[in-house]
């Protein structure tokens, strides 16, 4: 059993940034097929900015703008992540991932330095609801939702069965990757890909791809003994 603390969140974001950087070309290529060819570039720019912002925050004594600052809780850190993405991603993933993290932050509240696994899972659920509210996507629309929703459902179910967060996220990653793979035959109904209609069929969705990386990063980073 464990808790999720600020260090864990920073590890998560750092790991996600690494995965996005490594997969940047792939994400861009996927987006070139059914979008405007900037998902990899946008996410890399956004996550680089997130890592830089999180690096700065502990060093500053007082609150760094809308930054976390020394002694900031998990909610403040996620709010900073969300706002940084909103400002720097540029494409639809900015408001979408931005809202995901902002809603997670609201769910976790301002003060806590760490939260139990269940609270973190609840925050993931709140983040997912935010993505739906913002983007109005449904299952099968061929979007990030198609990877995120199965992951959140799975994490909740695993925790309810008594697994710890690390195990739940590992199974959640499998679900996210299956959800990502399932987008390939889908006909896009949202975003730039929806302008392509039938021609979007046969291409893996870039948003679902980055969402699967997000869950994989959590699985790698959140167990307390991760390095």
């Amino acid at each position, binding site marked *: 059993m464990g808790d999720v603390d600020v260090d864990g969140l920073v590890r998560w974001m750092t790991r996600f940034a690494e995965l996005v950087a490594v997969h940047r070309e792939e994400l861009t290529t996927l987006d070139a097929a059914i979008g405007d060819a900037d998902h990899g570039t946008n996410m890399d720019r956004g996550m680089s900015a997130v890592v830089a912002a999180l690096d700065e925050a502990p060093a500053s004594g007082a609150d760094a703008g809308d930054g976390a600052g020394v002694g900031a809780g998990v909610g403040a850190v996620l709010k900073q992540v969300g706002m940084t993405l*909103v*400002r720097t991603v540029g494409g*639809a993933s*900015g*408001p979408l991932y931005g809202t995901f993290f902002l809603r997670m932050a609201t769910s976790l509240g301002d003060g806590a330095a760490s939260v139990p696994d269940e609270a973190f899972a609840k925050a993931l659920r709140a983040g997912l609801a935010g993505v739906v509210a*913002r983007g109005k996507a449904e299952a099968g629309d061929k979007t990030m939702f198609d990877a995120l929703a199965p992951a959140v459902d799975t994490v909740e179910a695993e925790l309810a069965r008594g697994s710890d967060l690390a195990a739940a996220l590992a199974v959640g990653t499998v679900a996210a990757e299956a959800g990502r793979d399932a987008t390939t035959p889908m006909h896009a109904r949202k975003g730039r890909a929806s302008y392509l209609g039938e021609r979007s069929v046969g291409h893996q969705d870039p948003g679902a791809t980055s969402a699967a990386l997000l869950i994989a990063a959590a699985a790698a980073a959140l167990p307390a003994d991760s390095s």
Partner: protein
Amino acid sequence: MTRDDVGIVVVSHSRALARAAIAHAEQMLHGRPVRIEEAAGLDDGTLGTDAVRVADAIVRADGGRGVVVLMDLGSAVLSAELALDLLDRPLRERVILCPAPLVEGLCVAAVAAGTGADRDGVATEALRALGAKQDHLSVPAGAPGPDADGDGGHGELGGRFEVTWPHGLHARPAAVLVQAVREFDADVQLRDVTVGGAPVPAGSLTRVAAMAAVEGHTVEVTAAGPQAREALARVLELAATGFGDLTATAVGGRHRPPPALVAGRG
């Protein structure tokens, strides 16, 4: 002290596009100080939108009478919606996100704001902005118009009038026609048969004025519905007076509406 007009915010992926669209719209303002703010691009060269920038632009555009936000597509809309969440409630309630086409809507919104229209009036006008282009480019309806006073064969009545007065069916007579048509439970359409344009709804001032039927043109009127006969008769009756313009001319130029119009409606 100038009264504050409704403010406008332009959200686009491209800063260059937003600035050019604003410069273009400002040409129609003739110096009126309408606040049009851009929230476009991540920087001068990078495409994208940023909800924080949109929120800041809304704050700058707001003069207390509301803000109309125009957007290009995709993430511009998402960023604008997220921007609303970043505003405090009183300001948020003064903002409307308007799904008008960006360039055309901005021109119309700027003019409307400059004439003192309220927030909802500006947004409504912007939503109609494609009308002129659609009318101009649309293919005329297939079947030829009905004979004067004949039944069009579709439960429609039809008639025609000549535009015999100077300046044609410009805004003032158009307004008279539109007001008269709205009195009746009927669907009335007009068509400038001299030009061969598409029919326009006689109840829309923007569309009737945009038809720009000038002196010498013939306009076909069709009416359908419960009061089609009365509506058609009224339009033709008013047309005989140039919707007020002929009478003014006849009395030596001093504009005075004919008695029939004064008795008509309040």
